[in-house]
C-alpha cells in the first residue's frame, strides 16, 4: 500500500518536473545564501584569528608601550637571568607598491629570540637566520610571493609614510602548518634591524612577546619581575588582548553581516515553505482520491513528510555547494570592507564551520518539513470529500484572515515595545526588526483582501471581466497568493530598508564631508587605515608645501593611537586647526567657545559621536591616557559629529600631543590658499614641488570627498550584493508560487479558451494577475521598507555604530522596489502564461 502510495505521489511530481525542480531549487537557494554569508563572515573572522594568533606565536603575554617599547626594555629583560623567553617584535602594516600593490604586514623579528615563539621562522620552513642579518633581506611565504609575482632577488618596494623603502626578497618560507600558513599570508619577514631602519624608528619596538609559564604562581612571579624591569611607559598584557580588541572592532560589522544572512534565511524559509506548500496543496485531488479509497491520514502524512525530507535533503546538498561558491565571491567583498575600515586580513581559504553546516541543514530540511507539514496536516484533517473541494480550504483561510491580522497587530506592537525596551542591545534590536517583518507578513492576507476588493471594480472598469478574473483570482487563491505576496513584500521591504539606510548614510556623509573638508588642498600619504600609524609626511615636504606663496594658512593632522590606562586603544588625531577648520566642527554636546579656548591649554580632547556612545562619554568625563610621561587624566570637552570611523576617535590639539608625547611628525596637511588663487594651478605646482622620493597625494577638498565616497561605496558593496541576493531569492519564490498557482488554474484557463479567449488574451489574463500580485507586493513593500529603514537607521545603526543619520527616503529606492516587485512577478508569470497559451484547451478539459 505505502509503496503504491509513494508511487502515486512521486509520479505526480515526476510529471510536474518544473514543480519538483523549483521546490529543490527553492530549498537550495535559501540554504546557499545562508551558507554563503555565514561562511564568508566566518572565514574572514577565522583568518584574522589565525593570523593574529600565528603572528604572536606561542606568546602568552606581550609588552606594549606608549608610544612604543624602547629597545632597552628588551635588553633589560634579555640580560636578566632566569626570566622566561622574550622576543622583540617590530610590526607594521605597509603598502607594497612594487612588484604589486597590496598591504603587507612587515614583521621584524630577532631570529635569535624567535625559537620558542614562531615555528615558521625556523630553518625547516626554509628560513635562513644568518641571511636575515644581511641588511635588506626579506622573506615571504611561497604563496604570497607567487601571488605578488615576486622572485628571489627581486626588490620589494614599500611606502613608508611618503617615502619609498625597498628590501630584497632573499628567500621563500614554506609554512608547514595551517597556522603558520595563515600567519604568513601577506606577511613580509625581515630582521628587526631591517624593520627599524626601514620604518626609521631606531630604538623602538612594537612589542615584546613573552612566553610565561602556565602555572599561576610562577606566572605571577615572572610578571612581577618583568614589570619591575620595564620603564613606566611600558606595560604587560595578555597576548590575546589585541586580537580581542580588533575582533571587538568588527563586532558590529559582524553582527550586521549575520543579520543580513538571517534575513536571507528568513526569505529562504518563506521560499521553502512556499514551494512545499504548493507541492502538497497541488495534489489535493490526489490526496482526496487516496483518502477516498482508504489511505489513512497517518499514511498520507508520513508520505508527505518523507517526500519533504527527500526534497529538503536534495536541496540542502545542492545549497551547500552553491553556498560555497557564493562564499568565494562574498568573502572578497567582506575582506575588502574589513581592510578598508578595520584591519588587514587576508583569507586564503574558506573555513568550513560545522555550525554553519548544521544551521544550513536545519534550515533546508527543517523548513522543508515545516513547510510541508502544515498543509499536509490541514489536508489530512479534512474529510475526503472536502479535500477535493479547494474552495473549502479557501473559505477556511478567509475565516482566519481576521485572526491573522490580529496576531499581526499584536506582533507589531510587541516589536515596537521590544525596540523601546531593549536599550542599546543590538541583537534585541534585530529581534524586534524580525518580529516587525513577521507582523507585516501576518497582515498581508488581510491587506491583500481589502486591496483586491478596492481594486476589483477599477480592474473591471479597465479590463472588464478579464480584469475581474485576474483580481479575484488573487483573493480566491489567497492561501497561495498571500504567501507569495508576503514573501516578495518582506524580501523587497528588507532590501528597500537597506537601500534607504545606505542612501541616508551616503547623503549624510557627503554633506558632512562637504562641510568638514574646508581646506583648499589636502596633502596626505597614500596610506590605508591599517597602516595609518606609519603614514607620516617628511619634514622637507611639510616645509615646502606650507611655504608656498599662495598658502595663507594650514591645518595639520597626526594620526595616532591613544593607549588608555586600561590598555584599550583609542584612535586619535592630534591636530593644529586653522580657524576655518575649527568652524567646520559641529558639536552635539559641549560649548564650542569653551571647547576651543581650553583645547590647546590643558590635557583635554574632544571625541566623536561614536566614541562618545561606545565609551559613554560626555563633556566633563575624563579618559585616563597613557602618555610618555605616564598616565594622565584627559578631560572630554565636547562631542562632535563624525562619520569617518565606527569605532569613533578622539581629537587633541597638537600642543597637547607635543606636551605628552613630544613627537612632532604629521600625517596630513590641509592648506588654505589666498583668496582668488587658481586652485588647479596651485595643486599642479604643489605636486611638482614634492621632494624626490616622496610619494604623497595632493588633492583638492573636492577630490578628497570623491575619494572618500569611493571607499564608502566599496564598504557597502556587500550590502548591495546581499540586497540583490534577497531579491533573487524573492523572485525565485514568487516564480514558484505563481507557477503553481497558475498551473492550478489550468482548467479555468481552459474554459476561458474554450469559450473563446485567444491565446494572447490568455497571456494577458495570466500576466495581469501575476503583475497585480507583484504590484501588491511592491505596494506593501514600500511602507514596510520605510519602517525597516527607520529601525535600521534609528535603532540598528545607532546601536552598532553610534551615528546620527539624516533620514533620506529617496523616491528612487521606493520606485525601484515597486519596479522589482512588478518585474519579478511578471517574469514569474511569463512561463505559466506562455505554457497555458500554448496548451490546447482540449487537454485541460479532457477530464470531461
Amino acid at each position, binding site marked *: 500500500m505505502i509503496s503504491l502510495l509513494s508511487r502515486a505521489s512521486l509520479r505526480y511530481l515526476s510529471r510536474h518536473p518544473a514543480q519538483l525542480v523549483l521546490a529543490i531549487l527553492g530549498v537550495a537557494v535559501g540554504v546557499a545564501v545562508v551558507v554563503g554569508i555565514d561562511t564568508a563572515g566566518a572565514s574572514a573572522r577565522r583568518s584574522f584569528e589565525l593570523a593574529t594568533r600565528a603572528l604572536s606565536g606561542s606568546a602568552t603575554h606581550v609588552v606594549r608601550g606608549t608610544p612604543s617599547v624602547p629597545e632597552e626594555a628588551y635588553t633589560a629583560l634579555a640580560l636578566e637571568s632566569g626570566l622566561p623567553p622574550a622576543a622583540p617584535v617590530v610590526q607594521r602594516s605597509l603598502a607594497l607598491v612594487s612588484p604589486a600593490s597590496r598591504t603587507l604586514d612587515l614583521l621584524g623579528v630577532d631570529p635569535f629570540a624567535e625559537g620558542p615563539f614562531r*615555528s615558521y621562522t625556523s630553518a625547516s620552513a626554509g628560513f635562513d637566520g644568518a641571511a636575515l642579518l644581511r641588511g635588506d633581506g626579506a622573506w615571504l611565504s611561497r604563496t604570497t610571493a607567487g601571488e605578488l609575482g615576486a622572485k628571489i632577488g627581486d626588490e620589494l618596494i614599500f611606502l613608508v609614510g611618503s617615502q619609498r623603502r625597498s628590501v630584497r626578497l632573499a628567500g621563500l618560507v614554506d609554512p608547514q602548518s595551517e597556522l603558520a600558513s595563515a600567519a604568513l599570508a601577506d606577511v613580509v619577514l625581515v630582521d628587526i634591524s631591517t624593520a627599524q631602519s626601514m620604518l626609521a624608528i631606531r630604538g623602538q619596538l612594537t612589542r615584546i612577546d613573552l612566553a610565561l609559564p602556565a602555572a599561576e604562581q610562577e606566572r605571577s612571579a615572572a610578571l612581577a619581575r618583568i614589570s619591575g624591569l620595564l620603564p613606566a611607559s611600558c606595560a604587560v598584557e595578555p597576548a590575546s588582548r589585541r586580537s580581542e580588541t580588533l575582533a571587538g572592532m568588527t563586532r558590529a560589522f559582524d553582527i550586521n553581516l549575520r543579520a543580513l544572512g538571517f534575513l536571507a534565511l528568513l526569505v529562504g524559509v518563506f521560499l521553502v515553505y512556499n514551494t512545499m506548500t504548493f507541492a502538497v496543496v497541488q495534489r489535493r485531488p490526489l490526496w482526496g482520491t487516496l483518502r477516498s479509497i482508504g489511505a489513512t491520514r497517518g499514511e498520507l502524512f508520513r508520505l508527505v513528510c518523507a517526500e519533504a525530507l527527500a526534497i529538503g535533503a536534495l536541496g540542502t546538498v545542492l545549497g551547500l555547494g552553491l553556498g560555497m561558491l557564493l562564499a568565494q565571491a562574498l568573502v572578497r567583498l567582506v575582506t575588502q570592507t574589513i581592510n578598508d575600515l578595520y584591519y588587514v586580513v587576508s583569507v586564503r581559504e574558506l573555513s568550513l564551520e560545522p555550525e554553519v553546516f548544521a544551521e544550513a541543514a536545519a534550515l533546508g530540511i527543517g523548513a522543508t518539513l515545516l513547510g510541508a507539514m502544515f498543509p499536509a496536516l490541514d489536508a489530512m484533517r479534512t474529510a475526503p470529500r472536502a479535500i477535493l473541494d479547494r474552495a473549502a480550504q479557501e473559505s477556511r483561510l478567509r475565516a482566519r484572515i481576521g485572526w491573522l491580522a490580529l496576531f499581526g497587530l499584536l506582533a507589531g506592537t510587541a516589536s515596537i515595545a521590544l525596540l523601546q525596551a531593549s536599550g542599546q542591545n543590538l541583537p534585541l534590536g534585530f529581534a524586534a526588526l524580525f518580529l516587525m517583518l513577521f507582523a507585516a507578513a501576518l497582515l498581508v492576507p488581510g491587506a491583500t483582501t481589502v486591496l483586491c476588493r478596492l481594486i476589483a471594480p477599477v480592474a473591471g472598469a479597465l479590463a472588464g471581466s478579464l480584469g475581474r478574473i485576474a483580481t479575484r483570482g488573487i483573493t480566491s487563491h489567497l492561501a497561495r497568493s498571500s504567501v507569495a505576496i508576503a514573501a516578495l513584500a518582506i524580501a523587497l521591504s528588507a532590501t528597500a530598508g537597506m537601500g534607504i539606510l545606505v542612501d541616508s548614510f551616503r547623503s549624510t556623509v557627503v554633506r558632512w564631508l562637504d562641510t568638514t573638508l574646508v581646506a583648499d588642498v589636502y596633502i596626505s600619504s597614500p596610506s590605508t587605515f591599517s597602516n595609518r600609524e606609519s603614514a607620516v609626511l617628511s619634514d622637507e615636504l611639510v616645509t615646502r608645501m606650507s611655504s608656498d606663496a599662495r598658502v595663507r594658512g594650514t591645518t595639520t593632522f597626526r594620526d595616532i593611537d591613544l593607549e588608555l590606562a586600561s590598555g584599550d586603544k583609542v584612535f586619535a588625531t592630534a591636530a593644529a586647526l586653522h580657524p576655518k577648520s575649527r568652524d567646520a566642527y559641529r558639536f552635539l554636546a559641549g560649548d564650542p567657545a569653551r571647547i576651543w579656548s581650553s583645547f590647546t591649554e590643558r590635557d583635554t580632547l574632544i571625541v566623536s559621536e561614536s566614541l562618545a556612545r561606545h565609551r559613554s562619554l560626555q563633556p566633563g568625563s575624563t579618559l585616563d591616557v597613557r602618555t610618555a610621561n605616564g598616565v594622565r587624566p584627559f578631560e572630554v570637552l565636547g562631542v562632535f559629529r563624525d562619520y569617518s570611523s565606527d569605532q569613533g576617535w578622539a581629537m587633541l590639539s597638537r600642543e597637547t600631543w607635543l606636551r605628552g608625547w613630544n613627537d612632532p611628525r604629521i600625517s596630513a596637511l590641509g592648506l588654505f590658499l589666498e583668496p582668488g588663487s587658481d586652485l588647479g594651478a596651485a595643486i599642479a605646482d604643489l605636486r611638482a614641488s614634492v621632494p624626490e622620493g616622496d610619494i604623497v597625494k595632493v588633492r583638492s577638498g573636492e577630490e578628497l570627498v570623491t575619494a572618500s565616497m569611493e571607499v564608502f561605496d566599496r564598504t557597502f558593496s556587500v550590502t548591495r550584493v546581499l540586497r540583490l541576493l534577497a531579491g533573487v531569492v524573492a523572485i525565485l519564490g514568487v516564480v514558484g508560487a505563481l507557477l503553481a498557482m497558475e498551473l492550478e488554474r489550468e482548467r479555468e484557463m481552459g474554459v476561458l479558451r474554450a469559450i473563446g479567449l485567444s491565446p494572447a488574451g490568455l497571456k494577458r489574463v495570466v500576466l495581469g494577475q501575476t503583475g497585480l500580485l507583484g504590484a501588491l507586493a511592491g505596494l506593501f513593500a514600500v511602507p514596510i521598507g520605510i519602517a525597516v529603514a527607520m529601525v535600521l537607521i534609528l535603532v540598528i545603526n545607532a546601536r552598532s555604530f553610534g551615528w546620527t543619520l539624516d533620514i533620506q527616503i529617496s523616491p528612487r529606492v521606493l520606485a525601484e522596489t515597486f519596479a522589482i516587485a512588478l518585474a519579478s512577478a511578471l517574469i514569474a508569470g511569463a512561463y505559466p502564461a506562455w505554457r497555458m497559451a500554448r496548451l490546447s484547451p482540449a487537454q485541460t478539459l479532457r477530464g470531461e
Partner: protein
Amino acid sequence: MRVHLACLLLALLAACSDERESVRASLDVGDLLSAPADPRFERALEPREFSFPADHGPHPGFQTEWWYFTGTLADATGHEFGYQLTFFRRALAPEAPALDSAWATKDIYMAHFTLADARNGTFEARERFERGALDLAGARATPWRVWLRDWSVEGDLDAGNVRLRAQDGDLELDLALRSTSALVKQGERGLSRKGAAPGNASYYYSIPRMRSEGTLALRGERRAVSGESWFDREWSTSALEEGQVGWDWFALRLEDGSELMLYRMRRSDVSLDPFSSAIFTRNGLEPRALGSSEFTLRETAHWTSPSSGASYPSRWTIEVPALGLACEVEPLVADCELRVAVRYWEGAVRVSGTLDARAISGRGFVELTGY
C-alpha cells in the same frame, strides 16, 4: 683546536630553533664549511707578537674567534663534575650592514654551557645564540669581558683572575678562576696551522691550569665546588680543507703539574693528517712541541650514542716515547654528547699511566667531532 666548530656557526644560524631535523639538514651542507672566506677578512699568516690585554679582547678583523673554558670540579664529598663554558664570535661579513638600527651587526655570538655529573653519570648541555649588538652579546679587552646575555666571563686575564657565570633553568655555575700556570703560546709562537693553505691557521694561546672555586647548581641542588680549569683562546679566518672530516682533541692536566695538549686531525681516507700535533708543558719550563710522528693514540673502547646512533671512541691509550709517557684516558661520564645545534662530544676525562716510570694520574677534557 676548535676552529672548525666555530665554522659551523654559519650553518647553525639556520637553526635558531629547537627543531632537531632542521639542524641535521643544515649540517649536511658541507659546502658552507669549506666556502672560501671573504678576502677582506684578516688572516693568520705568520707569527705575531701578542699584545695583552688587547689580544684577550675581540679581533673584529678576523672572521672567527672564541674563548673556551673547560674544567673538572668536585665538592667536599669528592663528588666530581665536568664543566664547559665557551663563547664563539663569528662575523657574517667584514662590515655591518648600513642600517639605521642598533640591532644591525656583523657578529653573531654562540655559547655552550655544559655540566657533567660523574657520580650520577648525567650530562646537561645548553646553547645560546645572540647578535653582537645592543650589549646583548659581545667581547671587550678592558676591562676584559665576554658575554652572551647573562652568561659571561670577565676579570683580568693578565693578573690571572677570572669570574665565570652561567645560568640556564636549573643549571648554574659561578666560579672564580685563578691562573696557576703561565700562558702557553700554541704552535709556532702562537701561530697554529690547520691546513696546507696559507692563512688556514689561527692565533692560539692557552692557560692550561686555573685554580677554580665557586658554586654549582644542578637539578635544584647547589653546592660549593673547587677544581681546575683550562682556558683556550683562538682567532682566525680559516676553512676546512678538503679531506678533513673531524678531529680528536685532548687537554690533559697531570697531577705532577705538567700538561699535555694533543690533537689529531682525521681525514676521510682514515690517514693521519700531518697537521696533527701535541705540546707538552710543565710549569716554569719551555713547552715542548711534538710532531705527529712523535706520539701514538690508540682507541681501546667505543661508545654508541643511543640518541644519535653515532659511535665515539671512549677509551684511549696515548704513548709519547720521547717523554716516557704512557697513559690511559677514560671519560668521567660516557655520554657527553652535545645534542645542541651541532652535534659533538666534549667531556671531562680521567688519566692514569706512567711518566718517566712513575705512576701518574690526572684530569682533562676531550673533544670529538665528525663522528
